[in-house]
């Protein structure tokens, strides 16, 4: 019962936390570039404005796809904090991102198409690492349930350092940060970077943005698993990882998609699999 309440709490609070994190991110980015930067609440103003704008729809399928994207993104986090099987959660998350790709494909714009293709590539790039991480969690905690893993008290970071590095590597893809922001970025770059959202206007874009906030919180929850042996410090460390991600965003330039795909897979195989080998030789008690 308490877990269902936590899930509902996530549904209500995640957009607020996600939006605030986004605002802090933009402020930090501005300070790192020696600018003053927008107010912390800027992401909320943006979404409030987008809801009031005219909605130009290039294909009737676009809105149902985006609504599904939002619903599944929220549902993923709900399942996560409700404590369902983590395997199922990753599949629901994939469904959510597939709906976003379909929404981008439903438009006739070549930029939208290119964005969708790049998003598919990114999905290909990060998905193996997530699955390896799941195996790692199971090998250490002997459970696929979020709360069993978190309350097992095992120092995941010490058992799975390689997998943590791998997850940290692909974090930039899910948070849409440089050097992996090839399909969509929040910053004032231009060209293809607006890729996947090229044909989204008004409410559609607002829904995509809110879905991204949901995803941000869920993904940070995933990172928290590594630090779960010290609950309070764990939250601080998770936020520190987010801060590192902002730093990386500011000091790197976009990569080509070939390099992204190769490097993420190399990292997955080297750090992820090497980390798993000992668990097949010795069982963790």
């Amino acid at each position, binding site marked *: 019962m308490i877990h269902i309440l936590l899930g509902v709490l996530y549904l209500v609070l995640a957009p607020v936390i996600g939006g605030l994190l986004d605002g802090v991110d933009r402020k930090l980015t501005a300070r790192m570039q020696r600018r003053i930067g927008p107010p912390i609440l*800027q992401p909320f103003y*943006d979404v409030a404005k987008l809801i*009031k704008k005219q*909605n130009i*729809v290039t294909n009737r399928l676009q809105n149902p796809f985006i609504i599904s994207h939002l619903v599944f993104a929220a549902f993923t986090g709900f399942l996560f904090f409700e404590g369902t099987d983590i395997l199922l959660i990753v599949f629901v998350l994939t469904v959510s991102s597939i709906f976003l790709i379909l929404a981008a494909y439903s438009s006739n714009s070549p930029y939208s198409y290119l964005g969708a293709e790049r998003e598919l590539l990114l999905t290909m790039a990060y998905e193996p690492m997530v699955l390896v991480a799941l195996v790692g969690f199971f090998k250490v905690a002997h459970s696929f349930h979020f709360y069993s893993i978190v309350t097992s008290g095992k120092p995941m970071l010490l058992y799975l350092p390689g997998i943590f590095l791998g997850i940290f590597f692909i974090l930039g893809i899910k948070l849409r940060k440089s050097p992996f922001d090839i399909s969509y970025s929040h910053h004032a770059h*231009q060209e293809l970077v*607006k890729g996947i959202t090229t*044909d989204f*206007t008004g409410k559609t874009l607002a829904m995509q943005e809110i879905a991204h906030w949901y995803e941000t919180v869920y993904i940070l929850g995933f990172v928290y698993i590594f630090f779960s042996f010290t609950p309070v410090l764990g939250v601080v460390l998770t936020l520190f990882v987010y801060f590192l991600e902002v730093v990386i965003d500011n000091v790197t330039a976009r990569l080509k998609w070939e390099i992204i795909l190769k490097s993420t897979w190399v990292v997955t195989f080297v750090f992820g699999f090497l980390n798993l080998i000992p668990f097949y030789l010795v069982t963790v008690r």
Partner: protein
Amino acid sequence: MSVFKRSPWIIHYDASSCNGCDIEVLACLTPLYDLERFGIINTGNPKHADIFLVTGGVNSRNEAVVRNIYSQMPDPKVVVAVGICAINGNFFAECYNIRGGIDKVIPVDVYVPGCAARPESIIDGVVQALEILERKRTEFERYRPARVVNGSHESL
């Protein structure tokens, strides 16, 4: 304060300008002027934009592009003509291919004079455009416009 004033997103297009005004527009994004502190973002995508910043006198080749960008922007929207060429074509006005001002092609809300327009005056122009954007928003909400599907209008 209305949310429209807090988060105006801009699209910038060079309609045969000499690039002087464009450099000044981009200078507004630098740490010295930092437009983002007002929530202003240079989007580069007409479908996300609220304010259309145009420079230059518009020639016969890019007239269609200016119209296209304007028609792709969702309502409410405003147009800011930056620089003297965008106002009346200036010394290019007599050229055979120059239309002589943005308002010959699309309706303009704010004119920012100067050759090249200073970043301060561009920011001032954008701030004045926000007032007009706010007025257009109330009109927009009063008339509940049709939703555009596949390029044709249909009621919600």
